[in-house]
């Protein structure tokens, strides 16, 4: 038997569906929580309806912009409903598809709102569309819309494990740089203003403490997945994971990220880990399981499915590595920064203004993006070159619409990375109206 055949057999073998069903419930609950937070705090209006201009992901500019409050409310309400249905296993297939589409649509509204864990949610919601965590413990089964099946093919939980593993492993890779591992930055900067944070705050100013915390974060990211996979260290790894994420939640403003990881990583446990819990809760899964069918243990994984899984895994492995196709430090150029799990990897801040030259009137003036953007958008713009280019094009178009057809737009962005002295991020003498962005090309207008 070849290695591929062996892998195929391992991925096709039936395993208890309990842990996947638990993941489905947790994920649905998280989606509900996420949507509720947005609605409750009025964030859809603040971040998506109020701004005059919205930044777009490359290739996703076609996604319809929702600018009305009612429309945004409907989007988040539908997202909440899809989360509820996923959690309950009700109309599961439709709910999973709706969740994926709605979440990606929500993300496409404004790229300044990009977050690594939102990208993770989008990927997980996509994976839920192609797996069957609803064949057990679901209303669809109770309603006889789906035949109950206590097992799933092993590739299904494996896919989620693989996806979650990448977050930590590439998170560790993002920390492999001199700032993080030799100087303890930006941790030192972050801890300097968190000396009110319990025990860790007390030690924040201790020489070497920030470096120790940096190393601890790196080692955690690097080791937690193997430790979760190995039965003997699993419990310790998960408890450490909980402590780590609760600590980061206490120290930093990272929203749902800790809860997502805490809620999703039990997928690394035994496939039937919920059963003892349910037994203790006097829900008798054995009774349920006795009545269910099981997957065919001799089933072979079809070639097309094996190929699809391989392609997906390859894309996920290679996407974060695309940053090596570009020259310069990714933390500075941000080429290949997104979708690469570079979580909490740097402290970057800056200021930007545009210089506009109207060759028809020979007039030159400066324009601060604050005039048209929210404070949050401004902060994202000031340090991210692709946004700087997008906004330059927007300015040019805005003035063209006002009759200024001969216009050059230059950007003066000064940025500091991890406490280093600020320096220009993009070429201040490059007319950005003459620059076109592309997916993998080198942005030679970024100053390295």
């Amino acid at each position: 038997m070849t290695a591929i055949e062996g892998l195929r057999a391992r991925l096709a073998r039936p395993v208890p569906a309990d842990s996947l069903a638990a993941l489905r419930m947790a994920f649905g609950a998280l989606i509900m929580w996420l949507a509720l937070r947005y609605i409750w705090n009025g964030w859809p209006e603040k971040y998506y309806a109020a701004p005059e201009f919205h930044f777009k992901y490359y290739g996703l500019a076609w996604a319809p912009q929702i600018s009305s409050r009612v429309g945004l409310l409907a989007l988040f309400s539908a997202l909440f409903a899809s989360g509820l249905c996923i959690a309950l296993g009700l109309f599961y297939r439709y709910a999973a598809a709706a969740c994926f589409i709605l979440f990606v649509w929500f993300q496409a509204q404004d790229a300044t709102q990009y977050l690594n864990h939102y990208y993770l949610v989008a990927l997980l919601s996509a994976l839920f569309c192609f797996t069957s965590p609803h064949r057990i413990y679901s209303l669809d089964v109770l309603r006889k819309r789906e035949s109950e099946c206590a097992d799933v093919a092993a590739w299904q939980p494996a896919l989620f494990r693989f996806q979650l593993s990448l977050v930590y492993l590439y998170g560790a890779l993002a920390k492999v740089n001199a700032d993080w591992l030799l100087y303890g930055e930006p941790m030192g900067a972050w801890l300097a203003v968190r000396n009110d944070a319990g025990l860790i705050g007390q030690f924040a100013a201790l020489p070497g403490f920030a470096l120790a915390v940096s190393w601890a974060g790196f080692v955690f990211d690097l080791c937690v997945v193997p430790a979760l996979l190995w039965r003997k260290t699993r419990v310790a790894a998960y408890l450490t994971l909980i402590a780590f994420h609760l600590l980061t939640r206490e120290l930093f403003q990272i929203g749902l990220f800790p809860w997502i990881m805490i809620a999703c990583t039990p997928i690394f446990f035994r496939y039937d880990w919920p059963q003892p819990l349910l037994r203790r809760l006097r829900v008798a899964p054995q009774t349920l399981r006795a009545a269910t069918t099981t997957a065919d243990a001799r089933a072979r994984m079809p070639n097309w499915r094996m190929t699809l899984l391989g392609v997906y895994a390859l894309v996920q492995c290679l996407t974060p590595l695309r940053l090596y196709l570009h020259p310069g430090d990714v933390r500075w150029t941000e080429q290949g920064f997104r979708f690469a799990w570079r979580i909490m990897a740097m402290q970057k801040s800056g200021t930007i203004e545009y210089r506009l030259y109207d060759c028809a009137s020979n007039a030159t003036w400066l324009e601060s993006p604050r005039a048209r953007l929210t404070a949050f958008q401004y902060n994202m713009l000031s340090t991210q070159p692709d946004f700087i280019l997008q906004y330059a094009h927007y300015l040019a178009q805005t003035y063209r619409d006002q009759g200024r057809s001969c216009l050059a737009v230059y950007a003066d962005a000064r940025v500091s990375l991890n406490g280093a002295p600020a320096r220009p991020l993009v070429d201040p003498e490059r007319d950005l109206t003459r620059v076109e962005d592309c997916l993998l090309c080198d942005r030679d207008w970024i100053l390295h």
Partner: protein
Amino acid sequence: MQAGAWLAIFSCASLVACDAGRLGPDALLAAFPPGPDTAGVLNFFALGFAVPAYVDLEQNAAALDQAAQDFQTAPGPGTLLNLRTRWRATQDRLKTTEIIFFGPASDSSLYARLDCWSRGFTLCARPGDCATTIDGVIAGAGTINNASIEASGVRVRGLPAIEYLLYDDGAGNASSAAVVAALNGRRLQYLRAVAANVRDRSRDLRRAWDPSSGNFARELTNAGSGGQFMRRSDALSWIVQQMILIIENVRDAKLGGPAGFTLKSAGVKNPALLESRFSRTSLADMRVALGGLRSVYTGEYGGQTGAGFSVIALDRNPDLDAQVRASLEMNLAQMDAIALKYGDLETALAADAPEASALFASLKELLVLVSADLVSASGANPGASPNDGD
């Protein structure tokens, strides 16, 4: 068994992590350097700067209102001079607090009711400026009193409205004689009403921050213990954001717009965009606003000292702290030099003074130091989205 042991270790570690900050042995903690006094920075901002600055503003606004009464009692060049002096003193106190544009100042629009200009609204003085103007109201027959001013928009009230009434007779004449002659009847009534309104709104601001009344100061002094700021670092980030915005406002709105450097004038010099153009004291507005930033940064206000934001910069990067201080002083000195050479900003801009361009460039360097270097070094997160982050 193994799970139980790990659970016990985890529980103990969590308890220690959560409680040692409060319960840990003092001797152990005293062995470690405390780091920057972040609590002191917030305490100084709230109690050493904001509250005393608002007390000063309230007192000066009351004196301004009294001066308006005195003028009504005995109109003449002497009482007008007193009135103008009181207006400038009140304007100085307000400009000092321009950096505190959050909390009651922004949430209740209290600041905009005192100073529409700094919030991006030009004054509606003469007919033609807007649909409703100061001169239009004066020429009309409607009631003019504190309540009517309170019900009106921000563009016909506050200290800019008082400046217009004190430095313009309604026909573009700023001479004392012309203004004294014009300042009677409904025009004087309008002045009295606006002055009373400025007094009341200044009092509202002071009360909103005062620990004995509204106590918004508590949001900062107790940051991280509930309230608006979940963490102390969130409050510090807000302060940095105010520092950045005040530099931008001084550079772009107070200088760049009128000088034709920025968007507002699209490359064309426009003295009508000057902040205090009727009294020709726009340079003083800039200087005092930047002085507010200096107070917040250095921890010095009204002869008292405390922990300014400087203590955080000093802890992280002493060179950077020195650079920020030097840049602040240099900008203030450049403003003084313009005053010395040209008298006022209006004259300097009319003469295309190279000093104005130099000041504009120098303010940019200060902006870069604060918004890039200081933010990066201090781990602050100004303008952050309150939703999420990673």
